[in-house]
């Protein structure tokens, strides 16, 4: 290795390029394909449910969501003689249960989020946040049977109280007086199920409140409540609304908990305390066991409607959260 040749070629300058190497191209392609899988899956869900439900949707047309009759008549040979599929009663039930859930859950969740962000001391806060996260991990079947066996007696009593003192408002009328298994009870169970979601989103937005604004308010002599009222709540309003919409979406799609708690009756029922109601998801579960191939197609169409409905709610929630996130005066 002595005396390296003096005329060693001066290396020509490397070509600089931002072109990814082959391995990177493969990597990017694979990751992008993986990333697009959510689009593919959602697209496939829409395609297959529409394909299966198309026959029913085409036959029933718009009455599929406006009429509230669901019946299949079968003659003695098992052939279908007459059938009517209308989803209105269950759509009303879905909205009713989900709205009750949101009305109960949102004030509680926002209060908890405020308590956790502004009032709770450090160690207590940690514990409570863990409890709420744990609540989010409970399976829905647990809420369902707890609601049926433990909550129902208490909720029946609450319903009677509401009926006694607020019975003059039409939606709180109960006739005949059956208080168990009502949309109200289902709404309470759903509220408990969506509280963790709404709480954690609200808490996240509250904790993102710009520190300088909070400190400015304190410096002007505001109390803690003033800060919450004038700085944190206006800042977090969009996030809270978005979180509530997400909760609404969850509550609309819940199957098992509603099926266990609610007395599913196929009629439009606006009396929230009366023991009859239903939602689309629980209808699917209820009818699925005994349904023939033709009725299953109708259930697929119902599933499609439910899917589109939750997609719409999620989209609105996403837009609200997005807009509120970037605004911040």
């Amino acid at each position, binding site marked *: 290795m002595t005396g390296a040749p003096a005329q060693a070629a001066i290396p020509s300058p490397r070509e600089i390029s931002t072109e990814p190497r082959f*391995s*990177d191209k*493969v990597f990017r392609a694979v*990751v*992008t394909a*993986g*990333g*697009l*899988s*959510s689009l593919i*899956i*959602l697209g496939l*869900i829409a395609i*297959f*449910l529409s394909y*299966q439900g198309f026959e029913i949707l085409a036959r029933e047309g718009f009455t599929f969501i406006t009429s509230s009759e669901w019946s299949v008549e079968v003659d003695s040979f098992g052939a279908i003689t007459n059938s009517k599929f209308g989803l209105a009663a269950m759509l009303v039930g879905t909205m009713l249960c989900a709205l009750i859930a949101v009305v109960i859950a949102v004030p*509680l*969740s926002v*209060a*908890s989020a405020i*308590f956790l962000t*502004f009032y709770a001391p450090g160690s207590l806060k940690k514990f409570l946040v*863990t409890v*709420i*996260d744990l*609540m989010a*991990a*409970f*399976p*829905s*079947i*647990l*809420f369902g049977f*707890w609601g*049926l066996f*433990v*909550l129902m007696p208490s909720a029946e*009593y609450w319903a009677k*109280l509401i009926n006694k003192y607020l019975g003059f408002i039409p939606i709180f009328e109960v006739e005949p007086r059956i208080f168990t298994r009502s949309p109200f009870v289902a709404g309470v169970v759903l509220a408990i199920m969506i*509280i963790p979601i709404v709480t954690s989103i609200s808490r996240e937005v509250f904790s993102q409140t710009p520190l300088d604004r909070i400190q400015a308010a304190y410096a002007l002599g505001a*109390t803690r*409540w*003033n800060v919450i009222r004038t700085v944190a709540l206006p800042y977090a309003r969009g996030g809270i609304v978005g979180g509530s919409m997400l909760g609404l*979406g969850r509550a*609309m*799609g*819940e*199957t*098992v908990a509603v099926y*266990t708690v609610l007395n599913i009756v196929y009629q439009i029922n606006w009396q929230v305390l009366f023991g009859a109601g239903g939602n689309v*998801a629980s209808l*699917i*579960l209820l009818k699925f066991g005994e349904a023939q191939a033709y009725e299953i197609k109708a259930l*697929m169409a119902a*599933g499609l409607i*439910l*899917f589109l409905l*939750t997609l719409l709610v*999620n*989209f609105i929630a996403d837009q609200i959260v997005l807009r509120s996130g970037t605004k911040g005066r």
Partner: protein
Amino acid sequence: MSASTIIPKPSKPWKPSLRDRFIEFSLVLGSVLTSYLLVAATEMKGKLAYFFTFFAALALFNLAKGTISRGFMIGKDQFFGAVMLLGMTLVIIPTASILYTVFDRGRKGLHAGLLTNDMSVSTPSDPITSGGLLHAVIGTTLLVLVALIVSLPIGILTALYLTEIKGRFTRPIRFLVQAMSGVPSIVAGLFILSSIVYTITKSYSGVVGSLALTILMIPTIARTAEEVLNLIPNELREAGVALGGTQWRTVAMVVVPAARSGLITAIILGVARIVGETAPILLLTGGGDAVNLNPTSGAMGSLPFYIWKSFLLGTEESITRGWAGLFVLLVLVLFLFTLARVLGSRRMK
């Protein structure tokens, strides 16, 4: 002695003094007394009355205390503090009640053979000690494993796309993942039913159940993994590239190993999300009573199915069985949750 410097003792002026604590304690005590007196004196009765009169009294006492000591503004602040505490308590009570109920009622259904027998020779209405839920535990494990094999790569790749590539589709994909997590579980079940069961397999089995669970699991894994990968400092990526690594090498050798424990947390949270999922299982798996080790054919039992069947039968023994099943399921969820917490907190250090 004359010119000795005075070293002030460290003090914490913001700490509540003994007097403050005493006042606070007496306020709570006073509220308890008031609620008792009110319930005794008026026609209100029951736990509900105690609960709300206690909080109303606490809020009003706080208002009075604040107003007297430091003016109305402070009083209002204290008042709303008590109101928020009420909200928090109302949120915590159901959780406590659920935990207590399941442990209390599930205890009666526990017996020696619970995890070693299956239900192939007994029915849910037999005495508690016959049969068990071995088939359900094995079934749930298999369902979760198969679902994990499918959803893990997809979930992680989605997270990598959102954090590493950040391409044109970042915004829509983030929304789609969000939308996917909002897909009702029964719709996932119907989708698999229409796309796979009716067209390909024509029969119920464990695998199709797992595929439905996959749809529910992917968004959880993707979103948690995304959060974890976002926490990895950009310097690590830059260092990897500066050492001459391609993006692929950097991600595979630097970023992912650095995020490993967080990614495991994502997996565990995904498993916890689907382990108790019931609706698609009811539609798709058939729910057998014997141990079935082959997920590709035959009816597959699982914990949610077992619980569902036991409760719907409605006899005393079967309901006890249902609570025992919920007990096992809850223990499983608690175990996964704790595991995720422990791993997650280690990552933070």
